[in-house]
Structures are given as structure tokens and as C-alpha cells.
């Protein structure tokens, strides 16, 4: 049994947690000594109290945002992968459609969201569409890149063995594309959340939706700054959790063979 401090896993978790605790403590003590009013900038303890008071409504908001995020993320994965498959099947399709994928990527979701919200009656659906638009591109571009990045020697080998298109796709292109695909997932998971929150902001106060963005807007109107921070904290936490989940998934799938997930052997 190694001492705890020499254990890589322990340090990786303990060090950032320690930094967090120190920062929170300094924040709490500093703001207490300077007696900054709560409505300007709350202390950690104020935020924590706000959590206790507004727990149920914040959790409901979190679930709403999470639902939009996950729906959009799933839609982006399915659509993005299908589009990438289409792109690698034919150069003509890729050349004619890729510019539009880029168009999709560079248009800010804030600018498109009002249009989508007007066009689509169902708020939940319109939010999901906006978030999907944001999350889609990294999956398309990464998966396409991965499906194209085939070891030329192996591609040659498959050709020599008269492997058809489908077999080459399943046995060569897809496994080879996985590292790129997981890279796309990591970026896309965060973007789905950002897209969901931004769309909620736009749909915001008018609609009946009650996501975390609505909580932030509402808290702003009522100058309930601690609640604002609490909602912000939940958004951040969700983003980190999504990212961590993608990292774990990628490790699970690639740890046996891909350089990115192999830890140095000692």
C-alpha cells in the first residue's frame, strides 16, 4: 500500500478539491470582513442557504435543462454520425453539403433561437432544436475526419481481400474513427448544455419553461443574487459531470488500444 500522497489517483482528486476549499474559505472570510452586501456579491454561505430555501424549484429547473441538454445531445450524436457516414460514402455529397454544416456552426444560436421559437410551437422541442444545432457540428466534423483517417496500408489490405463497402465501414472505418468520435462527444456534450441554456434565455421569461436560465433571469429581476449564483453553480456542475461522463466512456472504449487513453507503463 503506497502512502496516499504518492497515489496518482488521490492527488488528482485531492489537489483541485483543496484549491477549491481554500478559495471558498478566502471568499467567505474576505467578503465577511469587508461586509459586502448580499445583493452585490453573495458569500458561499449565502449561496448555500439559497440552495436550502429554493431547493425544489432549482432542482426542477435543473431537470428541465438537463432534459433539453440530453435530448439535444442524443439528437446531435445520431444526426451527426449519420451525416458523417453520408459524407464519407461520397465525395460529391460532402463537397456539396459541408459548407452548409459550417454555416450552421458559425451562425450564433442566440440569433437563430428567436426564429426557431416562433416557428416551433412546442417550447421543449424548440429548445431542443436550438441546442442540437449547437452540438451537431463537432460530431459531424470529428466523425468525418475519423472515418477518413484510415491507415492506408490497412485500406489496401481490405481492398486486396475484396472487402465490400459495408465490411470496410464496419471492420475498418468505424473502429478507426472511434477516437475522433469520442473527441467530438467531449466537445459536443458541453455545447449541448450551452445551447440549451442560451435557448432558454431567449425563450426565457415569456414561456412557461422553467430551466436554469429562467431561474437566473428571474433571480436577476428580483435581485435574489444568491439564487442566481446557485443556478449558475448547477449549470457548471452539469457541464463538468457531462464532460467527466464522456471522458469515462471514451476510456472504457479505447483504453485497450488507443494512445490517448493508454497510461504510461512503469
Amino acid at each position, binding site marked *: 500500500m503506497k502512502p496516499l500522497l504518492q497515489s496518482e489517483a488521490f492527488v488528482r482528486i485531492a489537489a483541485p478539491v483543496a484549491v477549491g476549499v481554500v478559495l471558498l474559505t478566502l471568499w467567505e472570510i474576505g467578503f465577511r470582513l469587508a461586509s459586502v452586501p448580499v445583493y452585490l456579491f453573495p458569500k458561499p454561505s449565502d449561496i448555500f442557504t439559497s440552495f436550502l430555501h429554493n431547493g425544489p424549484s432549482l432542482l426542477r429547473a435543473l431537470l428541465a435543462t438537463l432534459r433539453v441538454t440530453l435530448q439535444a445531445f442524443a439528437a446531435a450524436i445520431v444526426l451527426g454520425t449519420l451525416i458523417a457516414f453520408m459524407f464519407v460514402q461520397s465525395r460529391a455529397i460532402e463537397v456539396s453539403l459541408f459548407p452548409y454544416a459550417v454555416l450552421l456552426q458559425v451562425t450564433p444560436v442566440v440569433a437563430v433561437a428567436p426564429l426557431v421559437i416562433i416557428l416551433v410551437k412546442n417550447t421543449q422541442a424548440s429548445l431542443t432544436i436550438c441546442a442540437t444545432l449547437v452540438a451537431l457540428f463537432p460530431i459531424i466534423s470529428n466523425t468525418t475526419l475519423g472515418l477518413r483517417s484510415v*491507415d492506408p*496500408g*490497412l485500406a*489496401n*489490405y*481490405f481492398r*486486396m*481481400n*475484396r*472487402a465490400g463497402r459495408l*465490411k470496410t465501414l464496419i*471492420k*475498418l472505418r468505424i*473502429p*478507426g474513427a*472511434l477516437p475522433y468520435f469520442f473527441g467530438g462527444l467531449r466537445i459536443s456534450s458541453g455545447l449541448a448544455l450551452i445551447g440549451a441554456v442560451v435557448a432558454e434565455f431567449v425563450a426565457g421569461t415569456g414561456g412557461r419553461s422553467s430551466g436554469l436560465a429562467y431561474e437566473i433571469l428571474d433571480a436577476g429581476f428580483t435581485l435574489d443574487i444568491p439564487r442566481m449564483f446557485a443556478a449558475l453553480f448547477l449549470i457548471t456542475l452539469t457541464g463538468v459531470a457531462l464532460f467527466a461522463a464522456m471522458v469515462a466512456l471514451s476510456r472504457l472504449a479505447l483504453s*485497450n*488500444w*488507443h*494512445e490517448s487513453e*493508454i497510461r504510461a507503463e512503469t
Partner: protein
Amino acid sequence: MNALSPGESFEEKAERVTAGGDRPPAVEVLSAEKVFANGTRALSPIDLAITEGEFLTLIGPSGCGKSTLLKLIANLMEPSDGRLLWWRGDFARVGQEGRRFAFVFQEPTLMPWARVDANVRLPLELADMPNAKANPLVADAIARVGLSVFSRHYPRQLSGGMKMRVSIARALVTSPNLLLMDEPFGALDEFTRNKLDNDLVRLWWERKLTTVFVTHSIYEAVFLSTRIVVMAANPGRIFRTMTIDQSQPRDQAFRDSPKFAAYCRELSTWLAKASLPAASGGAS
């Protein structure tokens, strides 16, 4: 002698080129030449008959077209003129009548995501062979290259020489009649290369494999081959053929013998002549 005589068909020429051999030809190269789109003449018309069961090595300075010739034999490339026959027929016949060939590249070209056994099983899988039938063949091929202990390992866990062995097992698993190897051990250190050469010569002998081998190494060529084709560049052509007359299977004792040294000296003399800028055709 090289050109097609007036009124002569390729089939008739095939008879002429291989006349005198007591064994049937596996592959015949008949006045085949290769000119690339940019005008580079990689091969001037070449005649060559590869007899069943022989170990033929192509050697020569870079640019002599030995890899091009190997690719023509593998049907990875079409000749610009002339033609090739496989077992006296065109390429469509390969794959029928149990005629198979396997190609081993310069690199191991393994799938990094697949374990050794899955890598070796690949050609059988691509031919839709059911696992139950394939598994014993895979185990046998892995055993032949001495990697049974490593069959559940991933390529990254193996050394360069071991990866090359996996690549050879993948070639052997289909029980090929014709084995084509393009400088397979070029990237390995000499010690590993000698060891793999020993194994290869044993496998070739056991399996009665017809092998066409491309190398840069004089020692490797002499050790492995029954016949060596020395090629010259500008344009790529056959400069000289040499027969290595030595009993089989060969082992380290052959490498240490004066006969081996004499063959190496002879081959290196021919190679030096073939590499001269003004090298003109030697008697073949």
C-alpha cells in the same frame, strides 16, 4: 527473346518462356511493362516465370522497379503493356480452384484495436468463414509463428518483430499458394531479421509455398532464395538471375558456410554492376 515474336500469342509465348522447367508456373510475366502517368518508365518489358514451390527474390538498387513488379504480380497494378498469367489463366482464376495468394507489406499493418487472434482472423472473416471453422486455423497460424502465448495481446504490446510475425500469421492463415512479401523485415534489427528469416524458410519449406520476396539485403536474399533476380534501374529491368543451389531446409550452418560467403560475394558483384549508371543488360 524479350519481345513477342510476330504472330505469336501470349499463350504460345508463355510456353516458350517457361519451356524446360519441370514444374508448372504459378505466375508468368509476359513482356509486361509499366509506365506511370507522369511518363516515368518504372519497368521496361519484362519476362519472368515463377515456378511453383520456388522462393524467388527480387533485389536491386532503388528505382529498379522491384516493388512495381511485385505489385503487378499481386494484381495491385495493371501493366501498361504486356500481360500476366496466374496459373495459366487471368487474375479472375485466383480465388477459384483453391488458388490463393497473400501479401505481406513492409509494415505489419495490423488493426490496433484488435487483439492478435482477431487480426489473424481478419482475412477469413472478410471471406465470411464462420468462427467455428476459422478458430482452429487461426490458432494454428499463430502457433506456427510462435506467438500462441500472445494471442490475446494487442499489437501495441508487441515488439516490432512480433508484430511482423502476426502479419505473417495473417498471411499464412488462408493457406496461400503464393506468398508475396515486400521488404517485410526491412525495418527490423539484424538479429530479429535473421531469426524471422530462419522461421520463414522453415514455413516455406513445410508448406511448399511459392514465394516472391523483395529485399535490399544481400545476406537475406542468399539465405532465403532458390533463385534471385537482380534488377537494374533506368529503366527498371531484369539484369541477371542467380540460382542458389543449397539443400533445404536451410539453417544457421548455411549462413556460416564458405558457400554462403561465395554466393554473397557473387551477388554483391552483380548488384554493383547493376547499379552502375551505364549498366547494360547482362546475360540472364
